[in-house]
C-alpha cells in the first residue's frame, strides 16, 4: 500500500472514524431524561450508522489497489457524506430549543466533519476518475 496514493483515503478514514465515535461520545446529542429518549436520539443513531458505513467504505478505498474501484468508493463516500450533513435537523428533527446540546454541539460538529469528508472525497473521486480514465 503506497502512502502517497492513499493520503486522501487515510483522511477519509479519519473523518469517518471521528463521525462514528464522536456521534456517541464527545459530540453526542442530548442525554436521555427519565428513561425517555429525546427526539435527537434517532438522529444520533443514524449518524453513527452512516459513520460506520463511511468507515468501511474508506477502509476498502484505501486497501483495494484497483484505481477504478477506489474512484467508485470515493464517489460513494462523497454522496453519503452529503446525506449525513442533512440528517440532523432536516431529515430527522432535533429537540425543541436551539440552545440544547443537539443544536449547539451535535449538529454543528456533524456538519463540519461531514463537510470535510465531502470535500476530501469529492476531490479524491474527481482525481480518481480522471486518473483511471487516463490509464486506458
Amino acid at each position, binding site marked *: 500500500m503506497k502512502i502517497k496514493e492513499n493520503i486522501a483515503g487515510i483522511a477519509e478514514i479519519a473523518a469517518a472514524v471521528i463521525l462514528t465515535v464522536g456521534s456517541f461520545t464527545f459530540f453526542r446529542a*442530548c442525554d436521555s*431524561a*427519565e428513561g*425517555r429518549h*429525546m*427526539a435527537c436520539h434517532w438522529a444520533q443513531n443514524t449518524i453513527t450508522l452512516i459513520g460506520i458505513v463511511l468507515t468501511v467504505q474508506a477502509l476498502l478505498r484505501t486497501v483495494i489497489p484497483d484505481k477504478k474501484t477506489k474512484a467508485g468508493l470515493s464517489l460513494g463516500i462523497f454522496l453519503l457524506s452529503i446525506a449525513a450533513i442533512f440528517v440532523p435537523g432536516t431529515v430527522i*428533527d*432535533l*429537540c*425543541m*430549543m*436551539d*440552545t*440544547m446540546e443537539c*443544536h*449547539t*454541539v451535535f*449538529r*454543528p*460538529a456533524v*456538519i*463540519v466533519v461531514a*463537510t470535510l469528508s465531502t470535500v476530501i472525497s469529492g476531490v479524491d473521486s474527481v482525481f480518481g476518475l480522471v486518473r483511471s480514465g487516463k490509464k486506458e
Partner: protein
Amino acid sequence: MNIKQLPFKNLINRPVRSVLLVLIAAFMAAAVFGGTVAASGMRNGLDSLQKRLGADIIVVPEDAAEKNDLENILLQGTPAYFYMDKSVEDDLKAINGVAETSEQYFLVSANSECCSVQVQIIGFDEDSDISVKPWLKESYSGRLGENEIIVGSSLSTRVGHTLKLYGVECKAVGKLDETGTGLDTAIYTTPDTVRRLIRASQEKGIGVLSKQSPDDVISSVYIKVKDGVDIDDVAADINLHLDGVRAVRTRSMITGTADKLAVISKSINGLMAAVWILAAVIMSAALSVLANERRREFAVLRTIGFSRKRLGGLILSETAVICLSGAFAGILLTALTVFSFGKLIETKTGLPYLSPDILHVLVYALIAFAAVMLTGPLASAYSAYRLSRVDTGRILREGD
C-alpha cells in the same frame, strides 16, 4: 513545459513544503476572519438586546432583582417566575415622569411536549406592549386568541403547530425574529392564557402561586419614560416610594454585559494579533530558509536565461499561490466552524450572540483575504530580492 506553469509545478513537486506553507496562510486567514466575525456577532447581540428590551425601566419584585432572575431570563434564557401584586402597575402610573407601562407575566412550563426541558412562558398585554410585537417575524398581525402563542426563534415549533403546556393545547400563530438573547427560547402569549396555564398547573398539583389568585398578580412592568425626564430620577423615585419592588434601568443591566463583552473583544483582538504576527514571522522564516536551500535551483535558472526580475516574479508567484489557497481554505473552514457553533458561543459565554449578516461576512472575508495576500508576498519580498542577486558562478562552484 510552459514557463508560466513553473510556480505550480514547483509547489506540486514539493507537497509537504507546500501544504505546510498553505497551513500557515490558512491560520492567518482563520485568525483574522474568525476573530472579526466572532467579535461582530457579540456586538450585534448586545445591540439587539438593547433594542429588544424596548423599555427604559423594568420593575420586578425585590427578591427577583436580588437573585438576578430577570437578567438570567433575558441573557441566558434560564426559565424563572416571580410575582407581585397587580396594583403595582397603577402605583407606577401615578409616578411622575412615567409615560407608558406594560405588564408581563412569567411562567415556566413543567416540560414541553417533545422533551424534558422547561420553557419560559411570557404573558404580555397586546394593547400596551412595547417589547414583543416589534420582533414578530412571520405574518401575524391579528390579536392572539384563546390558547394561541407566539414562539421565540430558537424553538423548533413551527407556525400552525401546537404545543401542550400543563395539558393545555396551545397553537403557535407567530414566530419572533432572532435576537441572540435568552428571549429566543421563550413562548409569548396573552395574560389570559398565562392565567389559564397557572390554573392548569395548580390542577396538576404544581402550584406556582401559594395564596394569591392568578388574576391578582403580575411579574414585571416595562416602563417608557416621558421625553426630557431623567430616567435615573424616575427609577430612584420608584425605588423610594414603592415597597417590595425594584426598578432596574435597562441600560444598567446591559452595562455588565457590555463590560464582559469589552473584555472578550479585547482578548479576541489580542489573540488575533498574536496569531497573525506569529504566522507572519514563521512564514518569513520558512521562506527565508527555503530561499537559502533553493540557491542552486535559482542559479541554474539564471544560467538558462532567467532575468533577476523574472526570478523574483517566480518566487512572488509561488507565494501568491500559497497565500491564495491558504486564505481560501482558512476562510471557508472558519466560516463553517464559526457559523455552525454560533449558538455554542452564545450559551458558553452567556453573552448575546447574533451572527453578522451576509454582507458584513463578505466584507470580513475580503479583509482577511487582502491581509493574507499582502503579508505573504511582503514576507517573501526579501527572499526574492536576495535570490535575484545570487552570484550564479560562485553558487554553482560551491556545489561541485
